[in-house]
């Protein structure tokens, strides 16, 4: 049965395609995403407190490597098969090498409503995955030789809204522990799915707007927006299995790999690689990959994760 939060996404998309008057004020979108980011961080932080940090280090390094590799794989495909300009190819690649927090929230909800367990340090891996692709993207666009202002890049990357709230949530959850968070649970945990529904409603509206510009950029980008996540998900499943993650954890890692950033990376690219056309990457990430992942991808990635584990066991 289809998750109701997905129905909110469809409602938004249909309303957008029919050019309804429906619009969410920017402040509402901001509020909802701030709460979601904090909540994801808090939940992860509580669990982090339970395990020695060092034991997580290997997972963190693997995931960072995955971010590098996925970006480096996407780039030549876009540059030579897709015939994109260097800057555009680098920027799109960075979007796909990084992650989407919205997609993460949906896969967590998906597993939650099916009561499938997963490793609770996933939010930490989410944070780890946001950054490497941005750095690779900038280097791909500029080369290492030309003097990039790395200090301001680092500022842009590590002090963007997303990372600050996720990391801040992680630290607060880690410091306060499950007991300490009790009083703020009603806002951050009980309302999580409701806020996610509102968030997806808005995402549907945004997605509908992107479809217009997609028509301009032709079939290659559409194809890339579906094939790249499938490929990345395979990589994610492989690594998840190799790292010894549970089925749930493997499905999440696959989804993270498959998801494309539409907050942190666009902001960073706009400042650091301004000659890249932002419409290209946003319309692929929001117009194709986000809806694909949310509607079809996640069940597929979960099936892959299950299959990998059964196969390995058998």
């Amino acid at each position, binding site marked *: 049965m289809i998750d109701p939060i997905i129905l909110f996404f469809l409602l938004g998309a249909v309303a957008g395609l029919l050019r309804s008057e429906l619009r969410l004020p*920017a402040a509402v979108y*901001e509020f909802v995403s701030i709460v979601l980011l904090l909540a994801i961080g808090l939940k992860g932080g509580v669990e982090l407190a339970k395990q020695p940090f060092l034991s997580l280090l290997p997972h963190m390094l693997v995931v960072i490597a995955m971010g590098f590799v996925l970006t480096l794989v996407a780039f030549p495909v876009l540059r030579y098969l897709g015939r994109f300009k260097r800057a555009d190819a680098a920027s799109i690649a960075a979007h796909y090498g990084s992650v989407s927090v919205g997609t993460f929230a949906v896969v967590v909800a998906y597993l939650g409503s099916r009561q499938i367990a997963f490793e609770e340090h996933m939010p930490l891996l989410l944070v780890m995955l946001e950054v490497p692709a941005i750095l690779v993207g900038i280097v791909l666009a500029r080369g290492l030789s030309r003097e990039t202002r790395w200090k301001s890049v680092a500022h842009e990357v590590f002090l963007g809204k997303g990372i600050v709230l996720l990391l801040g949530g992680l630290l607060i959850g880690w410091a306060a522990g499950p007991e300490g968070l009790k009083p703020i649970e009603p806002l951050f945990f009980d309302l999580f799915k409701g806020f996610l529904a509102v968030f997806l409603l*808005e995402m549907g*509206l945004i997605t509908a*707007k992107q479809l217009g*510009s997609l028509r301009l950029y032709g079939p290659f980008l559409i194809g890339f927006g579906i094939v790249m996540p499938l490929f990345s998900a395979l990589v994610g499943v492989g690594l998840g299995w190799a790292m010894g993650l549970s089925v749930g954890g493997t499905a999440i890692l696959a989804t993270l790999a498959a998801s494309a950033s*539409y907050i942190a990376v666009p902001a960073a690219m*706009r400042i650091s690689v301004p000659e890249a056309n*932002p*419409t290209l990457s946003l319309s692929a990430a929001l117009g194709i990959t986000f809806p694909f992942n949310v509607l079809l991808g996640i069940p597929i990635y979960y099936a892959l994760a299950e299959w990998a584990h059964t196969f390995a066991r058998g």
Partner: protein
Amino acid sequence: MHSHTRKLLTVITEAALEGTLVRDLDRLNAHGYTITDARGKGNRGVRDAGWEASGNIRVEVVCDAETATAIAAYLREHYYDDYAMILFMSDIAVLRPEKF
């Protein structure tokens, strides 16, 4: 009450540029600026502010003609190619010329 002529430089561009632009203005000797949030349409398509990355800002700077020309030239050189941006200037009368 004496009034003096100055230039009003108006820049309309992507919200993502706000931080950078403000630093530029400081460096280029603008004594102040005013920013409002906006949406719009131009060569680079519709920018409707429905969503973080798609908002515009409207920046106004009151200054003397020389500074205005310098800022305009700087912005044109650094941002015109890569960013949604327009820029125009008009003559205004101010009361306290020493401020601008």
